[in-house]
C-alpha cells in the first residue's frame, strides 16, 4: 500500500491566502454553534456584531495576503486551483466590506421584522465565503462550487421573510432560474473540459495559447454556456428577468448584499474565466459581451424609467450597471479589468447605501417600497434624503462621486480598446438612466410629504452603514487615486502565475 500512498502527492498548500476564507466560513460555523448552544440568552445585536467582526477580521487578514502577493507576485496554490493575486484580494475585501455593511443594515431590520437573526448572518457569511471562493477559483469546478455556495445561501436569504408572500415567490423564482442557469453553466464547464482536457484555468490558458483552439466547437459551445450561467449571476440581459422580481420580493438588506456582493462575485468569476482563462480567444467572446452589454444597458435603463417601486427601479438600474461593467469586460484589457473592479467597488457602495435607505424607509413589513413612500423625504429626514441623493447621483455618474470615476474608468477602457460606439451607447444609456434617479430625487425633494406619513425611525446600524458608504462615495469622488491604484494593481493574468503543481 505504501507505494500507492506515495503516488498521491499532497500538493503544496499556502495557508495564508486561505485565511480570509476560513475566517469567514469559520465565523459562520462558530456563530451557528454559539447560537445553538446559548440560544436566546444572547443579546439581539450579538449576531450582527459578530458578523461585523468577522467581516473586519477578513479585511484584516486580507492585508497580509496582499503584502504576500506584493512580495511574491501573483501565484497559485493547491495544485493551481486557487489563484492568489491582487484581483482576488480586491474582491475579497469588497465582499468582506459588503458583509460588514449588510450586517449593519440587517440589524435593525431583522428585529423590526421579527426574523430569525442568527441564521441570516450564518447564511450571509457562508454566501460571502462562496463568493470569495469564486474570486480565487482557478479551477472551474471550484468556481462552480463557490457559485453554488453563494447562490444557495442567497436563495434562502431571499425567501426567508416568511410573512411576505413576495419574499417566497422571489425565492422560488430565483431558485428555479438559478438552478436552471447553473445547469447551463455546468454544461459549459463540461464542454470546456472536453475541449481542453482540463478544468484548471491556468492549464486552459496555456493550452489555448499553444494550440489554436479558437474554432473548436466544444470550446465555443462551452463559452456560450458559461456566459449563460455567469450572465445570469450578474443579471445581464437576456438572463436578467429574475432581477426585478427578486429584488422587489427579497428582504431589503438581502438585496443590498445581492446587488453589491453577488454581482461582484459574478463579475469576478466572469473575468477569471473569460479574461484570464479564455483571454487568448477574446476575439471570439468579445462580440457576445458587446451584445450583452448593449442589451443590458438598453433594457435596464428603459424598463427602469417606467417603474414605480423603488426597489424595482434600482433592480433595473442594476441591470443597466451590469451592462456598464460588461463594457469594461468587453475591453478585455488590464485596464478593463481594473475598471470593472473599480466600478464594482463604487457600485457596491451605492447599492448598499441605496438599499439601506430603502430598508429604513420601507417600514414594518418591508412594504413601503413604492416611490410614493419617498415623497417629501427631504422634509421629514433631510440627512437621509441628502445621503440617498448622493448615492443616486453617484449611480447617475455625476462628478465628485465614486460613480463618476467608475464610469470614467470603464469608458476609458472601452475607448482604449477602440470600442467607441459601445462607449457612446453606454453613455447614452447612462443619460436615460439618470432620468430615473432624478425621479427619485424629485420625489424626495420636490414633492410634499404625505400628510399622514409616520415618523421614520432610523436605527443605528443602517445609519452607520449609510454614513460609511456616503463618505466613501464622496471621498472616492474627490480623490479616487487610492482605489484606482488598488484596481490597477489587481492585475488578472494567469500568465504571471507560477503553478506549484
Amino acid at each position, binding site marked *: 500500500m505504501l507505494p500507492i500512498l506515495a503516488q498521491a502527492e499532497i500538493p503544496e498548500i499556502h495557508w495564508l491566502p486561505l485565511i480570509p476564507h476560513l475566517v469567514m466560513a469559520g465565523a459562520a460555523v462558530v456563530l451557528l454553534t454559539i447560537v445553538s448552544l446559548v440560544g436566546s440568552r444572547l443579546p439581539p445585536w450579538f449576531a450582527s456584531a459578530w458578523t461585523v467582526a468577522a467581516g473586519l477580521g477578513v479585511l484584516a487578514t486580507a492585508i497580509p495576503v496582499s503584502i504576500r502577493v506584493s512580495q511574491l507576485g501573483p501565484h497559485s496554490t493547491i495544485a493551481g486551483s486557487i489563484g492568489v493575486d491582487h484581483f482576488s484580494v480586491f474582491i475579497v475585501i469588497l465582499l468582506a466590506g459588503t458583509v460588514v455593511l449588510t450586517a449593519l443594515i440587517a440589524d435593525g431590520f431583522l428585529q423590526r421584522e421579527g426574523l430569525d437573526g442568527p441564521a441570516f448572518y450564518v447564511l450571509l457569511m457562508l454566501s460571502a465565503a462562496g463568493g470569495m471562493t469564486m474570486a480565487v477559483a482557478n479551477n472551474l469546478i471550484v468556481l462552480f462550487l463557490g457559485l453554488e455556495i453563494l447562490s444557495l445561501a442567497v436563495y434562502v436569504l431571499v425567501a426567508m421573510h416568511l410573512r411576505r408572500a413576495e419574499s417566497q415567490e422571489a425565492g422560488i423564482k430565483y431558485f428555479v432560474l438559478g438552478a436552471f442557469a447553473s445547469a447551463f453553466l455546468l454544461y459549459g464547464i463540461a464542454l470546456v473540459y472536453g475541449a481542453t482536457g482540463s478544468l484548471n484555468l491556468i492549464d486552459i490558458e496555456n493550452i489555448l495559447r499553444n494550440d489554436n483552439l479558437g474554432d473548436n466547437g466544444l470550446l465555443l459551445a462551452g463559452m456560450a454556456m458559461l456566459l449563460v450561467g455567469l450572465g445570469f449571476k450578474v443579471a445581464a440581459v437576456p438572463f436578467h428577468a429574475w432581477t426585478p422580481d427578486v429584488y422587489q420580493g427579497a428582504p431589503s438588506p438581502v438585496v443590498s448584499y445581492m446587488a453589491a456582493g453577488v454581482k461582484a462575485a459574478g463579475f469576478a468569476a466572469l473575468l477569471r474565466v473569460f479574461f484570464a482563462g479564455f483571454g487568448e480567444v477574446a476575439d471570439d467572446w468579445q462580440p457576445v459581451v458587446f451584445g450583452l452589454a448593449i442589451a443590458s444597458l438598453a433594457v435596464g435603463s428603459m424598463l427602469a424609467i417606467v417603474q414605480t417601486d423603488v426597489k424595482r427601479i434600482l433592480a433595473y438600474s442594476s441591470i443597466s450597471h451590469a451592462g456598464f461593467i460588461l463594457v469594461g469586460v468587453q475591453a478585455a484589457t488590464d485596464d478593463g479589468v481594473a475598471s470593472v473592479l473599480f466600478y464594482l467597488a463604487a457600485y457596491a457602495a451605492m447599492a448598499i447605501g441605496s438599499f439601506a435607505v430603502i430598508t429604513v424607509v420601507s417600514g414594518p413589513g418591508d412594504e413601503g417600497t413604492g416611490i410614493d413612500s419617498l415623497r417629501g423625504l427631504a422634509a421629514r429626514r433631510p440627512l437621509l434624503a441628502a445621503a440617498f441623493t448622493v448615492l443616486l447621483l453617484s449611480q447617475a455618474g455625476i462628478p*465628485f462621486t465614486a460613480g463618476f470615476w467608475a464610469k470614467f474608468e470603464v469608458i476609458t477602457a472601452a475607448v482604449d480598446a477602440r470600442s467607441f460606439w459601445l462607449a457612446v451607447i453606454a*453613455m447614452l444609456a447612462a*443619460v436615460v438612466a439618470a432620468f430615473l434617479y432624478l425621479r427619485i430625487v*424629485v420625489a424626495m425633494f420636490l414633492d410634499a410629504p404625505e400628510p399622514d406619513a409616520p415618523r421614520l425611525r432610523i436605527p443605528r446600524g443602517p445609519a452607520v452603514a449609510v454614513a460609511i458608504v456616503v463618505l466613501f462615495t464622496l471621498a472616492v469622488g474627490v480623490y479616487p487615486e487610492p482605489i484606482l491604484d488598488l484596481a490597477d494593481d489587481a492585475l488578472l493574468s494567469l500568465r504571471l502565475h507560477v503553478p506549484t503543481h
Partner: protein
Amino acid sequence: MDGSMVLPVIIFLPLVGAAAIALIAPSRSMVLKPVAVATSAATGALTLWLMAAFEAGDGGFQFTQFAEWIGSAGISWHVGVDGISLFLVVLTGFLFPIAIVACDPPHDAKAYYIWMLVLETGCLGVFLALDLVLFFLFFEVVLIPMYFLIGKWGHENRKYAATKFFLFTMLGSALMLVGMLALALLTARETGGAVTFNLVELANSAGELPTITARWIFLSFALAFAVKVPIFPVHTWLPDAHTEAPTAGSVILAGVLLKLGTYGLVRFGLYLFPEASRYFAPLLFTLGVIGILYGAVVATMQRDLKRLVAYSSVAHLGFIVLGIFSINTEGIEGGLLQMVNHGLSTGALFLLVGFIYERRHTRQISEMIGLQKAAPVLAAVFTVVMLSSVGLPGLNGFVGEFLILAGAFVAHRWWAVVAAAGVILAALYLLWAYQRVFHGTPDDANRSMPDLNWQEKLVMAPLVGLIVFLGVYPKPVIERMEPAVNALIEHMEEVEGIESPTVGDRPEGSFEELRELKAHYGEEEGH
C-alpha cells in the same frame, strides 16, 4: 497673497461659504443671507483683484497652479486664467452677489443659499480649469445645484423644466466624456507619451491625431457645448429652464451657465482642434445664423415675458457662436466680449422680469399694460437694458455684436450679411414687448404696481453702470483679451500650417498725408 493660491481660493471660497451656511442653526436663519452675500461678494472682490493684477499684455495663462491629482490617469489639478477666461470669471464673481442680493427665496432659504454658492464654485471651476477632466467635473457638477434651484424654487412647471435641463445637458456631456477620453488616449498613442488630460499639452500635440479622428472627437465636444450654449436645434431646454427657474436662477443660467458652452467652444474647440474647428466652422456658422434669426422670430411670438427673454438668449448666443467660428481676432474677441455683455444685459433683463413677477405674479405679456406709468424707474432701467440687448451703440451690446459681425464678415461674408439682419429682429421683438408691457394706459391691475425699491435699485445700478461703461470704454476688457486671442489664433495657424483669411493692415495714412496726396486736386479745382 501668493499668486498661485488666488485661483483655488476664488474657486473654493463659495464652497466654504456653503459649508458655513450648512452649519448655521435653523434658529438663526436671519444670518443666512448676509453670509451668502458676504461670501459671494468676497469672491467677487477677489475676481476684481484678479483682473487688476492680471498682466494685460500676456497671452498665456497666469496665476497657474499645478498639482498631481490622479497621476495614474494623467489627471491633474491645473488651474489658470488667461484673457479668454478672465472676464468670464469676473462676470461670475460679479453676477452671483447681485443675484443673491436681488432675490430672496420664498422658502428653504438655507438650502437655496447653499446651492447658489455651490453653483458659483462650479462655474468658477469651469472657467479656470486647465485640465480636461477637471473641467468636465466642474462642467457636469454645475447641473446639480441648477437642477435643485429650478426644481425646488421654480415656477409651476418646474419639475419638467429641471429634469429636461438636466437630461439634455447631460446627454451632451455624456458624449463629450467619450470624446475627451478618446482624445487623451489616442493622442498618447500617437505621441507615444503618457496619457494626460492637461489642456496645454494636449493642445501642443493637437496636430498629431489623424484628421478624421480629430473631427469626430471635435463633434462630440461641439455637441456638448452646443447643448449648453444652446445652439439651434438643441436649444429647447433653455426656454423651459429659464422660464421656470427662480429669478436668481435665470440670471445665473443666462449670465453664466450659457457661457460655459461658448467658453468651451473656444477653449476646447478651437484650441484643441484647429483643423476640425475650421472644417466644421461653416456648419456651426450656419447654425449660429439660424439661431440668430430663429431665436428672434420665435421670441417675437412669445406670450410669456420670461420666455421671450429666454429666446432672445438663443439669438444672442447665436451671435457669439458666429463670432467664435469666424476664427479671427475680431470675431473671437467680439464673441468673448459678447459673452460678458450678454451676461450683463440678459441677467439684468431677467432680474427686471423677476421684479415685475414679484409684483404682478404673472409673466404673461397680455396681463401687463402701461407699467411705465406705474413704475417709471423700472421702465427706464428696462429701456436701457433693452437697448443694450438690442445692440445700441454706446451700450455694451453693440461693441461685441459689431466685432462679431465684422469678424464673421471677413470669414464668410454672406452669412454675416444675413446675420446682421438679426439686429432688425432684435429691435422688433424687444420693442414690441416693451410696447405691450410698458406703454399704453395701465388698467386697474397694473396701475398700482410699486416702482423699484432701494434694494432693487442698488442691484440694478452696477449692472446699468457696466452696461454703459462697456459700451463706451470696452478697451480695458479688449486689451486684456487680445493677447490671448492672438495666441490662440497663432496656435491654430501653426498647427494647421495655414494662414487664416484676415483684413489687410490698417492704412498708414491720415488726413495729413491725404492732404499731400490730394494737393493736385486743389490745382485742378482752379479751372
